[in-house]
């Protein structure tokens, strides 16, 4: 499975099962396990919400790009037809102001806000997972072998996956922020189309992300093994 470190032979989990002794730590561990399991479900939901906002944002961004390009074309035509000897005293409209464009941009900003909130929640999940790891470290001290909460993943691995996911979505958010700021001002068709493409394909959301999430869901029992 991608993302898993290679040092988890079956023997460790067998040994963990034979530890068996009911210690006062047990309740703390099961609280931790519940926390991790809930986090996995939250991850799944957050990513679904992100994808849905991403789609909506793409539709808006697409409309912005199309409108911008048609406005630019209109401008070019107007510039060509305006001659110094023209009798009409038309005032050239302020090139970038357009009510429709403004509304669309506001829509895109709102979508970006939604995505920002989601990524903030992702950070929170990562930090609570870190908390579970820290608690486990406190209880187990220097022990390198400790019982797994679920099947094969050490608790630290949940944190590693969480960290990786929230970092990648964080980077993606930075890119989307840039796109939102620049799209309506792009004068170049290729650049505008590239911004759209960036929004759609999400270069910083790793293609392994769905696998990482699936791994987490399988491990915590949300998906049948």
């Amino acid at each position: 499975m991608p993302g898993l470190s290679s040092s988890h032979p079956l023997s460790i989990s067998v040994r963990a099962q034979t530890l068996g002794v009911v210690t006062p730590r047990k309740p703390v561990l099961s609280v931790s396990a519940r926390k991790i399991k809930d986090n996995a479900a939250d991850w799944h939901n957050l990513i679904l919400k992100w994808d849905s906002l991403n789609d909506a944002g793409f539709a808006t961004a697409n409309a912005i790009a199309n409108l911008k390009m048609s406005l630019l074309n209109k401008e070019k035509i107007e510039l060509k037809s305006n001659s110094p000897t023209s009798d009409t005293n038309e005032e050239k409209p302020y090139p970038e102001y357009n009510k429709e464009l403004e509304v669309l941009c506001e829509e895109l900003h709102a979508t970006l806000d939604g995505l920002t909130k989601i990524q903030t929640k992702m950070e929170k999940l990562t930090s609570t997972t870190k908390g579970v790891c820290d608690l486990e470290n406190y209880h187990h001290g220097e022990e390198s072998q400790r019982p797994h909460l679920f099947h094969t993943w050490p608790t630290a691995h949940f944190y590693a996956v969480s960290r990786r996911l929230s970092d990648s979505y964080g980077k993606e958010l930075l890119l989307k922020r840039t796109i939102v700021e620049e799209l309506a001002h792009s004068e170049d068709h290729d650049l505008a189309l590239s911004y759209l493409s960036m929004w759609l394909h999400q270069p910083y959301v790793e293609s392994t992300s769905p696998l990482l999430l699936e791994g987490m869901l399988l491990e915590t029992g949300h998906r049948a093994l």
Partner: protein
Amino acid sequence: MTPDPPLVAVQEALRKCFLLVEEQQGLWRSALSDCQPLLASLANLAEQLQAAQNVRFEEVPPLRAFPDLEERLRRKQLAAGDTILDKLGEKLATLLKVRDAVSSQVEQVFEVYQQHADTLGIDAILQPSVVSPSLADMLEWLQDIERHYRRRYLKRKYLFSSIQWGDLANIQALPKAWDQISEDEHQDLVQDTLLNVSFFLEG
């Protein structure tokens, strides 16, 4: 007049074949229509790839904060493209199945015909009736249909094999080229033939 067993045998083989053609034509048409949105997506993707190639990322100040962006974007675009190509490959495989099914069935009809050709007599072969075209005509039409599928498949397979990410202009021209194949060759050959034998099939 008692029905002539060899004649009946050939007629039955023909009926079976035409019915198969009718069924396969449905599969063929459905696979073709599934291809259109896929080709449109592919052409769109090629446009995106081209646009990104035209942009000098290092000269766009807001994008300087993302040094690996160009490569990452391209990778994602190509991955999306490969997904579409896989789906197109599946559609092409369906077209191949149709071609092979029709070829195989037509071959069987001709085998049956060969078995009985001598006993049938030239009149029985060439004579149409009120409810049936002549055996000779129907056999010829089946050959035409078989050839039709074979050639159309080949043209589409050739077009599909011409797709490569190094030639984005070609990919953008794909939807039109694909539709052209449908327009060029006897679009309604199969439909018209089936119409011609509709009374015969009900017999």
